[in-house]
C-alpha cells in the first residue's frame, strides 16, 4: 500500500481497504484502484451483472424480455429505463419465470421452456431475450440449450443472456453479456450477404427522453440517416440490419465499445466515439461525423447547424452561467464517458468540480479524467454513502449530479441535485438538452429552498451546514 502514503490527507477513506480507490487530482498522481469487485460490506452504489445486461437490452422495444429467476430480479428492473419508443411498448412489460422453491430444487428448465412457449404464443414477438439470474445460474439451468430448442420450436430468435448476478460485482460484465446477446441476434444467416449503405449505427444511445430522436434530427439535417441505435427505440428487425451501416458511432463507451470492436472485426465497419452531452461535445461530434463522409457540402451543413444552434442557446446558457459561476459541483455517475461530458458541461457553466467518481470506470478513463480536473479534486471509484457524505461536506459542494440513491443523500445535506440516471424522463443531450441541463443545475443549485432550510426555526437555532 505504499502508493496510498503519497495521497493527500484530505482524501482519507472511511475503510482502509478502499484507500487506493480514492485519488486526488494534482501532482502526486497515483494509479487508482478500479474495475474490481466491490468490497464486501462497503455499501457500494453499484448494481449487478444482471442489471447491466437489463439496462442495455431493455430498450429493444418489440422483444420479450423474460427474466429467469425468482420474482425480485424482475420486479426491481420493471420498466427501469426512461427510453421512449416510436412503436411497440412490449419492452415495458416485465416477464418473469417466477421461480419457486420447487423449481430451485428440481431445476427450472421445464418452467422456462413453458414460459417461452406461453409468451411466444401470446405475443408473437420477433425475439425473446432470456436473462439468467443468480439462482438460475447457480442451479445450473442450461438456458442456452433451452433457448436453442425453443428457437427451433418456434422458428424465432430466443436469445440467452448469460447475466447471473454473482459472476462479478461489476455491472460492466453485464454489459458484455448483453453485447454477446446482441451480436448473436445480428449474426447473419449462413451464406447471407450484407449490402453496405451510407447509414450509420448509433451505439450506446438509449433514447432517454427522446435523445436518439434529437440526434436523428441533427444528422438528418446534415444528410445522414441513422440505421439503428443500440438500443434506444430499436426493433429486432432494425438491429438485424446493423451490419449494413458504414460507420458505428459509440456514445456510451462502457456498454458498447466491445460491440463496436466486434462489428468492426466481423463486418469491417469502422467505429468512432461521439458524445452528444453538452454543446461543445455535440458540435465536435457532428463535425467528426460529417468529416468521416469527406463531403464538403455535408460539412458545410454541419457548420451551419452548429452556428445556428449555438447562437440559439447562447442567451440561456449565459444567463445560467452568470448565476452558477464559482459554484461547486460533485459528480457520481455510472460510467466515465458520462462523467467526462458532465465535467465539461459544468465547466462551461463556470462551475468548479470538487468531486467526481464512477461506478464502473476503467484505469485509462480515470487517467483522462484526472488530466482535465484541477488540483485537489477528489476522484472516487465505486464510492459508498459514507465516503460521498464525507467529501460532499469537506469540499463544500453546492450541487451533485448522480442517480436516485445519491439524490436523497444530497437533499439530506441541503445540497442541490441533478438526475443523470438511466431512468430519467427528460432528454439532456444535444443543444436543447444542454439548456435543459443548465436550467436544472441552476434551479436546484440556486433554489430558495436551501436558504429556508438553513434559516433558524422560530425560537430555535439554524441548522448547521
Amino acid at each position, binding site marked *: 500500500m505504499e502508493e496510498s502514503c503519497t495521497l493527500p490527507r484530505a482524501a482519507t477513506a*472511511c*475503510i482502509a*481497504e478502499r484507500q487506493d480507490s480514492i485519488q486526488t487530482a494534482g501532482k502526486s498522481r497515483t494509479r487508482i484502484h478500479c474495475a474490481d*469487485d*466491490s468490497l*464486501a*460490506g462497503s*455499501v*457500494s452504489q*453499484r*448494481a*449487478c*451483472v*444482471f*442489471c447491466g445486461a437489463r439496462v442495455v437490452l431493455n430498450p429493444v422495444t418489440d422483444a420479450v424480455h*423474460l427474466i429467469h*429467476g*425468482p*420474482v*425480485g*430480479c*424482475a*420486479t*426491481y428492473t420493471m420498466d427501469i429505463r426512461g427510453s421512449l419508443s416510436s412503436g411497440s411498448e412490449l419492452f*415495458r*412489460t*416485465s*416477464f*418473469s*419465470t*417466477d421461480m*419457486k*422453491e*420447487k423449481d*430451485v430444487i428440481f431445476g427450472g428448465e421445464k*418452467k422456462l421452456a*413453458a*414460459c417461452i412457449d*406461453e*409468451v411466444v404464443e*401470446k405475443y408473437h414477438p420477433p425475439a425473446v431475450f432470456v436473462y439468467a439470474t*443468480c*439462482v438460475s445460474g*447457480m442451479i445450473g439451468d442450461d438456458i442456452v440449450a433451452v433457448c436453442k430448442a425453443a428457437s427451433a420450436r418456434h422458428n424465432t430468435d430466443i436469445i440467452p443472456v448469460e447475466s447471473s*448476478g*454473482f*459472476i462479478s*460485482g461489476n455491472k460492466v460484465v453485464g454489459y458484455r453479456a448483453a453485447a454477446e446477446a446482441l451480436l448473436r441476434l445480428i449474426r447473419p444467416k449462413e451464406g447471407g450477404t450484407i449490402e453496405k449503405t451510407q447509414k450509420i449505427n448509433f451505439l450506446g444511445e438509449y433514447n432517454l427522453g427522446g435523445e436518439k430522436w434529437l440526434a436523428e434530427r441533427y444528422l438528418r439535417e446534415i444528410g445522414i440517416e441513422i440505421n439503428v441505435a443500440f438500443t434506444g427505440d430499436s426493433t429486432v428487425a432494425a438491429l438485424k440490419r446493423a451490419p449494413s451501416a458504414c460507420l458505428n458511432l459509440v456514445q456510451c463507451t462502457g456498454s458498447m465499445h466491445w460491440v463496436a470492436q466486434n462489428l468492426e472485426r466481423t463486418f469491417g465497419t469502422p467505429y468512432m466515439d461521439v458524445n452528444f452531452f453538452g454543446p461543445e461535445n455535440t458540435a465536435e461530434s457532428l463535425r467528426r461525423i460529417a468529416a468521416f463522409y469527406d463531403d464538403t457540402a455535408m460539412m458545410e451543413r454541419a457548420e451551419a447547424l452548429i452556428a445556428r444552434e449555438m447562437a440559439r442557446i447562447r442567451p440561456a446558457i449565459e444567463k445560467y452561467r452568470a448565476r452558477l459561476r464559482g459554484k461547486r459541483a460533485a459528480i457520481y455517475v455510472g460510467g466515465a464517458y458520462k462523467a467526462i461530458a458532465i465535467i465539461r458541461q459544468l465547466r462551461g457553466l463556470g462551475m468548479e468540480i470538487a468531486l467526481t467518481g464512477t461506478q464502473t470506470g476503467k484505469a485509462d478513463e480515470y487517467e483522462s479524467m484526472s488530466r482535465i480536473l484541477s488540483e485537489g479534486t477528489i476522484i472516487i471509484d465505486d464510492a459508498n*454513502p*459514507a465516503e460521498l*457524505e464525507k467529501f460532499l461536506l469537506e469540499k463544500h459542494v453546492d450541487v451533485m449530479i448522480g442517480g*436516485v*440513491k445519491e439524490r*436523497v*443523500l444530497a*437533499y*439530506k*445535506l*441541503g445540497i442541490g441535485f441533478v438526475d443523470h440516471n438511466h431512468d430519467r424522463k427528460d432528454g439532456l443531450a444535444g443543444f436543447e438538452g444542454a439548456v435543459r441541463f443548465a436550467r436544472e443545475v441552476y434551479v436546484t443549485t440556486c433554489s430558495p429552498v436551501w436558504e429556508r*432550510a438553513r434559516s433558524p426555526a422560530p425560537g430555535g437555532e439554524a441548522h448547521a451546514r
Partner: protein
Amino acid sequence: MPGENAAPVPGRAKQVNENQCNMCMPIGGVVAFKGIKNAMVLVHGSQGCSTYMRLANVEHFNEPFDIASSSLNEKQTIHGGEANLKKAMDNVIRVYQPNVLGILTTCLAETMGEDLDRIVASYIEEKKIAGIDIIPVPTPSYSGTHAEGFWAAARGIVAYYARPASSHRRINVIIPNISPADIREIKRILGLMGLEYTLLPDFSMTLDRPFGGKYQKIPTGGTPAERIAEMPGAPVTIQFGTTCPDSLSPGRYLEQEYNVPLVNLPLPIGLGNVDLFVETLANVSGNPVPEELALERGWLIDGMADSHKFNADGRPVVYGEPELVYAFSMACAENGAMPVVISTGSKNSLLKERLAPLVLNADEPPVVLEEADFAAVAAAALGAEANIAIGHSGGKLLTERYGIPLVRAGYPIHDRIGGQRILSAGYRGTLAFLDRFTNTLLEHKYATYRQKIKEELCTAEGV
C-alpha cells in the same frame, strides 16, 4: 411449501409472471430492521440485491437507505460465502457502529446452502463481538413475497430479544409494512387512549426524518432492544396481522412462548376497522374514548355522508400486500364502493378467509386473486369494469393502458413523491384516504362525462 397444488389463478397465464405485483422476501425484512434502534442491515448475496432494495426504498421513503452487501462473486458462490460475509460484517461494524446488525439471506445464499447461524456464531467468537446483536433471518425470495419477509424479520427480532420478563403495563403493538405517517397516527391514538406501549418495528423516525442539514448513518429512532426484550411481560399484544400466518407471526410467538394474549386486528383503516382498534384500546386501558377521537370519528362519518353517492359509482380494484388489501377493501365496502377485484401477489389463504363474509354478502361478489401478477389484475379489472384502483405504484400500468385511475397507497410508491407521508390510518387517515378516493372518482367523471354523454346521445342522426 405454499403454492404447490394451486389451481391456475383465473386470468393469470399458467407459468409466466407478467408485470409483478410483489417484491422479494429480503426487502420486507430490511424495512422491519430499519424500525429497530441503532440497527443496520446486511444482505448476504450478490451486490445487486442490496442496491435494488436500496433504490426501491429510497424512491418510496425519500430518505437515504443504506444496506450493506456481502457482494458475493463467482468464486465464493462455488466455495462458500463465509469469508465475504465476515469481511462485510467487519466493514459495516467499523463504518456504521450499529448495536443491532440484521443479516438477511437472498435466494443466492439460500441456494448455496449458507449456514448463517453457524457463520455468525463463529464470527462472534473469533472477533469477541460484544455490544452488537447480530440477528440472522433466512429470507429466500422464492419462498415468499416482501410481505412475508417483513413478518419473518419482525418475528426473528422478537424471538432474538424476548426474555421472561416481569409484568408491566406497556402493551405490545406490532405493525406490518405501513407508512411512517400511519405509524405516527397509530402512536397518537395510543397516546390519546392513555396507553403505554412498545411498537414494533417503529420506522416512523428512521425512515422519515425531519430536515436537519446532516445525514445520520443510522438515523435515530426505532424500537429499543431493551423494550423488545420486555415484550413478554406485556398485558396484551395487538398485532395488525389478521392475514399473517402463525409460522411468521411475532404476536403468535409471544403468545406461544410467553402466554401474552394476542389480539389480531385488521389495520385501522376504514371506520369499522378503526372502531375495532379504539374499542380494543378502551377495553385494554379501561379508559374512556377521549373527546378528540370522538370528534374525529364524527368528522369521518360526516365526510362519508358527504361523499357516499359519488362513491356508489366506484368499482375499485384493490391490490398489494394482504393486510393492506384487506383494510382498504373494508374501507371501500363500508363507503358503498364495493371492490370488484381484490388481489394480492402473495399466496395467502387467510386473506380469502377474512374476506369471505364480504364476498358472501356482496350484491356482486368481487373476484379474489392470490399469487397474482398485473396481467391477472388487469384482466380481472377489465372483466369487472373497474373504474378506480387502490395500491402501490406497480399499478400505474392500469392507468396508462386502460385508463383506470390509481389512488396510490401501500408500498412501494416510486412514481410519486411522498410515499412515506401517505396517511390512511385512524379516523383522520381514513378521511384523508376517502377524500383522495372520492376526488379521484370525481376528477375522472368531470374530465370525461361531457364527451361521454355527447358520444352517447348527440349523434349525427340523433340531434
